[in-house]
């Protein structure tokens, strides 16, 4: 990103290059003082943080810390009572989830939300819906423009499928797949939308060690190869520390830490939250 564009974004420090040679740009998404309540329960209490272009940003915290709620606010499934979400340097008006998706924010779910009755290929193709512009008639009748468009979309989809190593199951109905593969298909669907920001809700939940390693590798490669900015929620401290550039730590709806994995690991409050110091 050039300097001028970087200046337009609030607070953006200069872009920098990480140890492993990736470039982290200016602020892509800025979360400002978000508060979310369900009746009397405050799920998120005045939380602010930013996500910079090209980085892998983790949100961690013990059970019930409000991590998933945070992700749901970003993706439009929850509407916070207070606070603002800034995306690409502009304040985002209240939006429906599908409108957020059309802005270039894709996500996966903690308990997998795939189209079980459809094949893997069809599932991944749904990620392309917002990249199809030809009319319904020309698509149904397979006229010139629609055909070219379909080829283009298929190309991208095939690339994603190749990339995530799910070629062998492309025609299989998703309902028949084992859990680990479903998680991968969900990632493929999100990725095929060419998102600017990819939100992963516990991408490694319920996986064995080998599957976790695979998934970590895929997340790193997605970030590296497609340059996708990634925000992920994870339980497993070890995984997160290896994966992410910066980490937000939540506990009981509050932010208790924010920084590099190294900073966070040495933060006393974070250590307390994870080791279970009693709250009075």
């Amino acid at each position, binding site marked *: 990103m050039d300097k001028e564009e970087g200046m337009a974004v609030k607070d953006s420090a200069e872009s920098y290059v990480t140890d492993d040679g990736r470039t982290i740009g200016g602020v892509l998404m800025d979360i400002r003082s978000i508060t979310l309540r369900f009746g009397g329960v405050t799920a998120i209490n005045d939380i602010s943080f930013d996500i910079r272009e090209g980085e892998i940003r983790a949100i961690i915290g013990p059970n019930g810390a409000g991590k998933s709620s945070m992700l749901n606010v970003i993706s439009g499934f929850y509407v916070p009572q207070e606070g603002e979400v800034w995306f690409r340097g502009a304040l985002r008006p209240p939006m429906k989830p*599908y409108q957020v998706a059309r802005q270039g924010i894709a*996500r996966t779910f903690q308990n997998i939300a795939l*189209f079980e*009755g459809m094949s893997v290929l*069809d599932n991944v193709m*749904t990620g392309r819906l*917002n990249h199809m512009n030809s009319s*319904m008639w020309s698509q*149904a009748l397979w006229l010139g423009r629609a055909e070219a468009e379909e080829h283009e979309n298929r190309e991208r989809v095939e690339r994603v499928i190749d990339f995530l190593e799910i070629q062998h199951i492309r025609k299989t109905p998703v309902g028949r797949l*084992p859990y680990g593969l479903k998680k991968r298909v969900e990632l493929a669907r999100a990725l095929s939308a060419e998102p600017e920001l990819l939100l992963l809700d516990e991408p490694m939940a319920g996986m064995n060690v080998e599957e976790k390693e695979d998934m970590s590798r895929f997340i790193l490669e997605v970030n590296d190869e497609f340059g996708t900015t990634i925000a992920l929620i994870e339980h497993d401290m070890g995984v997160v520390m290896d994966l992410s550039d910066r980490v937000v730590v939540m506990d009981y709806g509050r932010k208790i830490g924010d920084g590099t994995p190294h900073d966070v690991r040495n933060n006393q409050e974070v250590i307390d939250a994870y080791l279970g110091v009693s709250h009075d």
Partner: protein
Amino acid sequence: MPDQVLFAMEAAINGLMAGVLYALVALGFVLIFKSSGIFNYAQGVFALFAALTLVGIMEGQVPFQHLINAIFGTELHGFGWETPAILAVVLTVGVMVVLAIAVERLILRHLVNQPDIILFMATIGLAYFMEGFGDLMWGADIKKLDVGLPQGGSFWIEENTAWLGGDGFYGFFIDRLDIVATIAAAILVIGLTAFSQFTKQGRALRAVADDHQAALSVGISLRFIWVLVWSIAGIVALVAGIMWGSKSGVQFSLSLIALKALPVLMLGGFTSIPGAIVGGLIIGMGEKLFEFLIGAPFLGGATENWFAYVLALLFLVFRPQGLFGDKIIERV
């Protein structure tokens, strides 16, 4: 050929034609079920309402005339003009689209992510409401529907098949209306299949049927898809309403033909558009042949009333997903 064989053939052909009409109603069910997981109990009433509206517009009736007359003491009945059939059909399509929008706004929007049974109950309510609403809007009398479709037996077919039998055989009797219905059904099926397989709206529609949340997360607007689906189902209902209405008059028992669509769906599978057609044909032909060959000679007749349901029960036992339905996948 012996006459018995020829009569059996005629019964089979007429059964196929009746099957097309069943299939037309079943098609509306499949469309909504496939795309929103809702079994729309009101589909039969939709066909009735569409036919009522079409007749009302064609005859230039004042909608809600009884209500208006009762409240204001007026003597309104008709506008005094007649609308050409084509224009009336276009206007009725418009009414069905408005109806789809109303259904989305007033019912579906409030039931996102609810269990299917809740949505099913809602459509039962909708069915009874629509029946009363249709009555209020256009009156309860039996109406004649004539949009200019050919009616009566086809002489051409009779003349050209007469040579098959002996002196007592005058050729097959096939109602020309049935032939029109068959052509209409074929066009609908081809069109709808192309729509659901090849267009992005079709893919979005299948996605919505599977998972609301996931559909939202890939940028599909549930509202738009629902309005679209219910509009298409309304148009299919209109086609079914025109065919049934032309055949047996527009009357409130029309909504009961929806019941015949149930065994058709169990046979063909609730999620398959071709299944609806094949199921309809099998039931139509099956009940006519069964009546002709076994029912009338050995069982005292009137088997047509229950044959379809027995067949459906057999299918439920041995192949619950129907002939073409989605495979039932269960991981343990």
